[in-house]
């Protein structure tokens, strides 16, 4: 059963179309991520679902009811805002208690729930303090606590990790997954960070210019991106795009490769865009097919600790690849290396529409 159904939402700010036919469904108990760059309409979508936006069109169905025109209060949803939006004049305890008091719970009940939630989120020691005296991570956890204390049926999360440092972000990703498992509530999570979307979402909706352009499980979106936009939104470092031309016989020619690569369905003379993920490029070993190994020159390295992102140039075509740190450490900027890829990892796109045409294939020799 679909718990939340967002149908063709429209919203303009002046001449800018913030939402242009935003549609998607979220199942009960699902962790759904909306992934899109800034100003693609993520926040507006969440606010529209919460009832905080005036819509020009479309409908929001929640728990089988049309709530498009329903008041904000009492929708059974709560939201974690990007700024956390804690009530600065109230203590942490009062912040956590607020959603309960509004629903008319007895004060014994309120106390019990606040204690439970602060325990769950490890903020018990801050209860008497004002939010401004808390660290970023504590504020974040209080914001989560306030959002879940009233046991909402739907939790909306608007880039809740953007204001945190990298280490905390990592911890909080795990925290959100744990909460989702323990509380079992439906979660709708908006983020511009593909890593967050891929690690947390059971399904991910990729947004472009106010509408969803692709929905799928993270693995599917990564392995079979429907177009170049999805391909570059999902995956880090971003996918390499290479121009190639069909050479007939279902093959394409890449400027830096000596031999053509099999790409079923590509006609002779047809120009295509090939997508090749940095993780799919490796150092050429003894087993690499001659067709897909080529020399390249390292011109930039970005050590990330465990892995190193290496920018290489092969016959003036630049691309990124990823090597494990201990291997990458053997090479310096300016070194010539021999690298290779598996043709099956090539994604073939139409350069004008960006649509997916198919995959590369291993040469049938």
């Amino acid at each position: 059963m679909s718990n939340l159904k967002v149908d063709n939402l429209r919203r303009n700010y002046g001449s800018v179309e913030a939402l242009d036919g935003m549609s998607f469904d979220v199942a009960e108990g699902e962790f759904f991520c909306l992934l899109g760059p800034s100003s693609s309409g993520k926040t507006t979508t969440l606010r529209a679902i919460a009832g905080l936006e005036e819509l020009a069109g479309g409908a929001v169905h929640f728990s089988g009811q049309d709530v498009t025109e329903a008041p904000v209060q009492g929708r059974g949803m709560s939201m974690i805002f990007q700024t956390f939006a804690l009530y600065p004049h109230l203590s942490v305890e009062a912040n956590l208690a607020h959603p309960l008091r509004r629903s008319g719970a007895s004060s014994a009940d309120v106390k019990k729930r606040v204690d439970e939630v602060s325990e769950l989120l490890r903020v018990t020691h801050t209860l008497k303090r004002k939010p401004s005296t808390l660290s970023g991570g504590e504020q974040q956890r209080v914001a989560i606590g306030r959002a879940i204390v009233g046991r909402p049926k739907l939790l909306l999360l608007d880039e809740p990790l953007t204001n945190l440092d990298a280490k905390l972000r990592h911890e909080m990703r795990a925290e959100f997954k744990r909460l989702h498992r323990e509380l079992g509530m439906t979660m709708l999570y908006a983020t511009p960070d593909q890593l967050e979307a891929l690690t947390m979402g059971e399904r991910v909706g990729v947004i472009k210019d106010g509408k969803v352009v692709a929905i799928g499980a993270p693995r599917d979106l990564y392995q079979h991106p429907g177009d170049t936009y999805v391909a570059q939104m999902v995956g880090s470092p971003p996918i390499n795009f290479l121009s190639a031309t069909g050479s007939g016989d279902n093959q394409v020619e890449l400027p830096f490769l000596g031999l053509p690569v099999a790409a079923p369905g590509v006609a002779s003379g047809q120009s295509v865009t090939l997508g090749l993920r940095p993780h799919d490029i490796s150092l050429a070993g003894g087993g690499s097919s001659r067709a897909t190994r080529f020399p390249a020159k390292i011109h930039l390295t970005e050590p990330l600790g465990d892995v190193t992102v290496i920018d290489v140039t092969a016959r003036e075509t630049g691309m990124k690849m990823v090597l494990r740190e201990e291997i990458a450490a053997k090479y310096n900027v300016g070194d010539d290396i021999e690298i290779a890829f598996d043709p099956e990892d090539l994604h073939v796109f139409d350069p004008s529409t960006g649509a997916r045409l198919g995959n590369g294939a291993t040469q049938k020799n």
Partner: protein
Amino acid sequence: MARRYREIGKAGWGYTAITGLVGFIYFFPVFWIILTAFKTRTDALAVPPKLFFTPTLENFQSVFFRASITTGTSQATDMGLYFFNSIFIAFTSVGLALIVGTLAAYAFSRYPLKGNDTYLFIILTTRMMPPIVVIIPIFLMFRLSGLAGSYWGIILLYTAFNIPFSVWLVKSFFDELNPEIEDAARMDGASERRVFFGFCIPQILAGLSATFVFGLILTWNEFLFALLLTGVETRTVPVAMARTLGGEVGVDYGLLAAIVTLFLIPIFFVTFLLQNQLLRGVTFGTVKK
């Protein structure tokens, strides 16, 4: 050699002395008035001015009780009433302006009209000219409506004068607030009324205090309209003060200084009470949180 940086929060004696000197120069006129209030008439007019003298409370006594020139007996003056008038009129009108201004500011900030800025500009135009240019029409309006000389007349006038200033200042405080906090409160089930009173107002208390004190100081010292539009019963202290000038016995500087000294007390008191809030209010939004 690396230059040593002074620890923040610890100024040297030199800086403290300079600040003290500048502060004293600012405070000196006030200090002199207060000193004069404790001088006899002879001491007050002494040349060169006396810094050391035997203080007297005579002047304060004669603020409220004065010997009649004709009979020589001590009579109560109306100064007590005038002090009451000043306090009542200033606090009521500034309070009213703050209430109306805050409501309007919230509306301007959260529910902008088409052409919001134009309306705000129009509101401010009333403060762009010296009040004296509108004194004749206002005087006539008050005469015709019968408001001249009444409490409500002068209170409404001061309220109207304070509203533009209140709207502009308070709007800037509302603009600084994070609207997501209000949205969060709504989603938690708070009604619009509660969002305003329970979440917006508590966040800008410092700003409201600052607005109140600024308005109060302006209104407290207002002379021109008070002179023209108050009657015997509703006269404020600045007008009463002016009336002690001149007369058959010349200017009684000791008496005048005593009135001024007493007149300073309420403002000192309010400002002192609100000073922590005031500091936060005037720096509101200037420091990124």
